[in-house]
């Protein structure tokens, strides 16, 4: 109850005209950087940071975190409309969001995404409000073996499902792992897999790979198969937005499950990307409509979006409570905290009550502001689908090019992106799944680091993964998820067998 009192006090701080204005500015800028591929919340935060030095710390963090919310929402827009995920965590949204938009229902797809995202974010904030200090303790229990177990769990829940040929899935996953290993290796400090190109020491950026594989690859598929986006009525479809939102409670089980997965992965070091993939994978296994997944099933949008935002929100907690930045954006914000003379860490909650609870209150308000603004933009974005293909195609190529370039001001990345485009086309054409590749690029090297750190700690004994209850549970859970499809099939076959017998 102490927390609730503090929260009410926090609302008192956050609810001023000035702060609401800052939220609107922050959210709008966030949507802009979220929508533009290549730019992300870190760009926006580092752009705004110098402007905030004159402000009160509370006002400054409200501005920056609002931008973070805006960018989280904006990242889903391009995923759904053009199959270009702006952030790693919106990749899973493309699986059903893009087919739905292509099917002539961009408004429904966007509204579903935003509605479930808002639910996920609110679940994350409620978690922070109610059990902040407990959550911080949970995060501390994670050492390298536990990190590895969490990544293993994420892979296990996602791989091993889906209709692609198993060997093609394996090749795609392994290519992702290899790409993740390019550059300097954290554990040994040595340079790996640069193939004689000096600049490759920086590694292969996720954004570059995804712009090519998804953006350019999909564009090539689109011209080749000569599909036409189904005609969309030119009316602004407000009613559709509301109807979609009103229909969301039908997915309440999926929403709750996804928010829970998201919160769990946000607190543990899994992060939003692993959360959204895992949530999608689990939804696809459990949903009664699993056959529709990948063809524009609303639950396939609900699951990754709710988990992504729940994780993105609850990931701010370890940053404040422990001083671990969970993402690049959080790292920039942490730099900001220090410039304002605040030290992220366990004492922040004790010493800076006003600041912390003002921030938490602003998370509630900021999300509400973000949802309202972003829903207002739905018809505008949906209208983009009506732009003729011969205009939109060069625009997508230019945006992917600038996006790939701006990751690290490198022309090599642009050429890599085009190469990934061709690869993406071939893979899609020949039914190689792209998702395992992307998941492996994002968390492959982290999983490898965690494994090798564990091996250093145990001096080469795999027993470390069974030494403590937490890590053992996670590993067993992962193994169970990995084997589940096989077990299901066996059970199903046995059932059929017994039915056939009289």
């Amino acid at each position, binding site marked *: 109850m102490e927390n609730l009192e503090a929260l009410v006090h926090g609302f008192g701080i956050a609810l001023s005209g000035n702060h609401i204005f800052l939220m609107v500015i922050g959210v709008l800028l966030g949507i802009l950087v979220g929508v533009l591929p290549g730019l992300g919340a870190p760009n926006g935060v580092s752009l705004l940071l110098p402007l905030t030095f004159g402000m009160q710390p509370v006002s400054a963090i409200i501005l920056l975190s609002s931008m973070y919310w805006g960018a989280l929402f904006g990242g889903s827009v391009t995923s759904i409309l053009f199959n270009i995920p702006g952030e790693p965590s919106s990749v899973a949204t493309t699986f059903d969001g893009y087919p739905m938009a292509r099917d002539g229902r961009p408004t429904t797809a966007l509204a579903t995404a935003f509605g479930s995202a808002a639910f996920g974010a609110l679940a994350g904030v409620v978690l922070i409000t109610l059990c902040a200090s407990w959550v911080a303790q949970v995060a501390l229990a994670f050492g390298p073996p536990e990190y590895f177990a969490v990544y293993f769990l994420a892979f296990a829940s996602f791989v091993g499902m889906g209709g692609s040929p198993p060997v093609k899935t394996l090749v795609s996953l392994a290519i992702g792992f290899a790409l993740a290993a390019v550059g300097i290796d954290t554990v040994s400090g040595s340079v790996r897999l640069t193939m004689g190109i000096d600049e490759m020491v920086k590694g292969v950026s996720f954004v570059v790979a995804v712009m090519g594989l998804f953006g350019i690859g999909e564009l090539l598929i689109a011209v080749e198969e*000569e599909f036409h986006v189904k005609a969309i009525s030119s009316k602004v479809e407000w009613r559709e937005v509301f109807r979609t939102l009103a229909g969301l409670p039908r997915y309440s089980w999926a929403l709750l499950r996804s928010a829970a997965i998201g919160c769990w992965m946000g607190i543990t070091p899994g992060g939003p990307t692993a959360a959204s993939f895992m949530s999608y994978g689990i939804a696809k296994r459990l949903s009664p409509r699993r056959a529709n997944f990948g063809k524009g099933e609303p639950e396939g949008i609900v699951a990754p979006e709710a988990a992504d935002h729940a994780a993105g929100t609850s990931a701010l907690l370890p940053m404040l409570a422990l001083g671990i930045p969970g993402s690049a954006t959080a790292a920039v914000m942490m730099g900001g905290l220090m410039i304002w003379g605040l030290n992220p860490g366990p004492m922040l909650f004790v010493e800076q009550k006003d600041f912390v609870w003002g921030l938490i209150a602003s998370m509630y308000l900021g999300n509400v502001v973000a949802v309202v603004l972003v829903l207002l933009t739905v018809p505008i974005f949906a209208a983009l689908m009506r732009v003729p293909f011969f205009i939109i195609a*060069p625009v997508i190529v230019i945006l992917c090019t600038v996006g790939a*370039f701006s990751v690290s001001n490198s022309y090599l990345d642009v050429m890599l992106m085009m190469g990934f485009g061709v690869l993406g086309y071939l893979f899609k054409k020949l039914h190689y799944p792209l998702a395992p590749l992307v998941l492996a690029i994002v968390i492959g090297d982290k999983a490898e680091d965690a494994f090798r750190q564990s091996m250093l700690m145990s001096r080469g004994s795999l027993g470390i993964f069974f030494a403590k209850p937490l890590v053992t549970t996670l590993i067993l859970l992962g193994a169970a998820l990995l084997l589940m499809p096989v077990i299901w099939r066996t059970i199903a076959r046995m059932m059929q067998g017994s039915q056939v017998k009289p």
Partner: protein
Amino acid sequence: MVSGRSLESATALITGAFGAAVAVSSLDNGIGWSAAGVESGTFPFIVGLVILAGSVFNLVQGWLHARAVVLGPSELRRIALLFVPAAVFVGIIPLIGMCPAAALYVFGALAWNKRGSLLVAALAAIGSALALYLIFEKTFQISLPRGVLGALMGF
């Protein structure tokens, strides 16, 4: 005309070559166990072998089971119409810089489709170059490539 067989084979050869390159270049980093733990080449080496083995499997599978024709002449023409201008756009960036290249690309794409006048195409081209400049260069302070031309003009 491209047959399913050749497309499958080509892809399997690309992935296989990548796998082989990964495995071979990991040998430089050392594989196995050393005083500093699992050596840095171990994991990529295994991954490289997996890619290689999988590609060989896919090569055989593709050869045996692929559909006869997947890309006819009209499909190839459409792909070329999208991909060639895009590749030219990317190719001329180091020469004339990002914004001029984008302007030429947009102008070319609109003019080729012959819907609307050349004036509209020119305006759209200048507009998109300007938008790029204002958003990326001015607002987010990302210095876009100037190209050889930009360097000559002293930007």
